[in-house]
């Protein structure tokens, strides 16, 4: 494995009974970047995340995290990484400071440094005013920030974020994005799974598109858009029958199309200037590329 990879998965397969959740996954996460694992629900993102902490063991393939082979040496890897789970698993009866203190111990922060580490994590999560508040009295956004602080209390080299903003309102989402952005600019490696296109586009240096247990493609968001959707998209509105007719014509002409709400979107529109019916031009985005690649709609 290469020295610069924080995470390296090769040929990883994970089955649950007859269901194959992860099906031959290859993924390299270079140190110091934020990689967005983008896929619809059920693509295998959460299973992949659980395998990286050895809470699930692969049936086939090899996994290395921070130079440690999993699952055997997973505990050493976990000591140097922070995990922010998708499902809130905070102890509701404890206060913010109590939770962070327990986890500082679990992450082996030396006793002399523990107090400072907890205060630092409270500050990062902007929870200093709430440090003695019980978790069950916190708002959803505060709880999510506390979850992140819990994963950062030991200054990890690598952070796993599993759907960090799922179910949160837009304002809270913005808050968390700037928190994650700061992590990345400090040089922490971040692997973030998400099914929000915008989240991946905003935060990730590299996006890996996951579908049906595999990585379909990987690259910089702008490069993925350019390659799979072109520069411009031409959206045509019309009656269902008109759009069906247009779709047939597109197939004959070899145009790449996708449904886009009530419209039919023709990708790589800049290649077909003059030939297209009346419609609206817009810049191609990651969603266009994603739908083309996976055939699946996403938020």
């Amino acid at each position, binding site marked *: 494995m290469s020295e610069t990879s924080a995470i390296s998965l090769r040929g990883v397969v*994970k089955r*649950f009974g007859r269901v194959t959740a992860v099906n031959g996954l290859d993924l390299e996460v270079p140190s110091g970047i934020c990689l967005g694992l983008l896929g619809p629900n059920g693509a295998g993102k959460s*299973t992949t995340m*659980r395998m990286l*902490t*050895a*809470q*699930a*063991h692969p049936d086939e393939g090899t996994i*290395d995290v921070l*130079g*440690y*082979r999993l699952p055997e*040496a997973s*505990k*050493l890897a*976990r*000591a140097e990484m922070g*995990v922010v*789970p998708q*499902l809130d*698993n*905070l*102890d*509701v*009866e*404890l206060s913010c400071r*109590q939770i962070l*203190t*327990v*986890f500082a*111990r*679990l*992450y*082996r922060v030396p006793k002399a440094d523990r107090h400072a580490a907890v205060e630092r994590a409270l500050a990062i999560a902007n929870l200093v005013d709430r440090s003695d508040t019980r978790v069950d009295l916190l708002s959803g956004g505060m709880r999510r920030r506390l979850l992140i602080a*819990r*994963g950062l209390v030991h200054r990890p080299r690598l952070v796993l974020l599993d759907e960090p903003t799922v179910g949160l309102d837009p304002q809270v989402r913005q808050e968390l994005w700037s928190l994650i952005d700061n992590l990345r600019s400090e040089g922490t490696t971040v692997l973030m799974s998400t099914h929000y296109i915008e989240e991946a586009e905003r935060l990730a240096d590299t996006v890996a598109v996951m579908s049906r247990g595999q990585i379909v493609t990987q690259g910089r968001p702008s490069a993925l858009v350019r390659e799979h959707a072109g520069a411009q998209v031409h959206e045509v509105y019309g009656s269902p029958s008109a759009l069906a007719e247009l779709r047939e014509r597109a197939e004959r002409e070899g145009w790449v199309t996708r449904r886009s709400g009530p419209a039919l979107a023709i990708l790589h529109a800049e290649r077909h200037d003059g030939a297209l019916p009346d419609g609206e031009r817009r810049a191609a985005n990651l969603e266009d590329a994603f739908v083309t690649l996976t055939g699946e709609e996403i938020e």
Partner: protein
Amino acid sequence: MRRRRMRRIEPAAVFGVMSRDATIFTRYWKTTTFSSVVDPTIYLLAFGFGFGALVSSVNGLSYKEYIGTGIVATAVLFSSVFPAMFGTFIKYRFQRTYDAFLAAPVDVDEIATSEILWIGLRAGVYGNAPLLVAIAFGLSPRWTAIFVPIVCFVTGAAFAGFGLTVAAIARSIDNFSYVQSGLLTPLFLVAGTFFPIDGLPNAIQVVAQFNPLYHCVQLVRDLVVMGIDPWADLGHLAFLTVFGLITWRLAIWRLRVRLID
């Protein structure tokens, strides 16, 4: 590939998990203490004075002495097996607390060991409550009674391991009824707590020898009022220790099956 290794069960992880339990305990120690003292008081009053009026002595002991020492085992059982069953089930199923630990450098072995030690410690303290109540009602203990907390700890830890195993196997919380009615109630009644087992049919007497609570009751009674019978008491302690080691390994095994895919 780095070669550094972490020991399988590390004190730092075990104490870390216990620190979580201890922190939460600061919130409910008052209710625990209340019920640990009130329950045996009621037993003592009801059985000691109610039933005791019908029985002058049991195996050479006054009924108050007999039951005051016997219900130590009951207190240990109730303060270990139920918290282990319900607490563990709630933590892994509803609160996902163990998932949070497992994402940190903590393994299933360490989680199970911490929970067992913590519950054992609590039983080691609260198991003495009935004895203190009995002393307040006039029981005068031998000096060897100072070893009772150790017996309570060993028995409590062993039943905590049993409770963890049950919680890890159970599919839903009402499965606990089978264990409670089918196993724990007979264990608690046929342990020589309220009446001697030598009056029971032979077959039941033999089965009772395998009841860990019976060994706990005998040990406590010897330490507090009867006087030590070295070989028999070592045997009782050995039985409880082996039972504890078995339930500890079982708990780790079943919890791993439950938590790791």
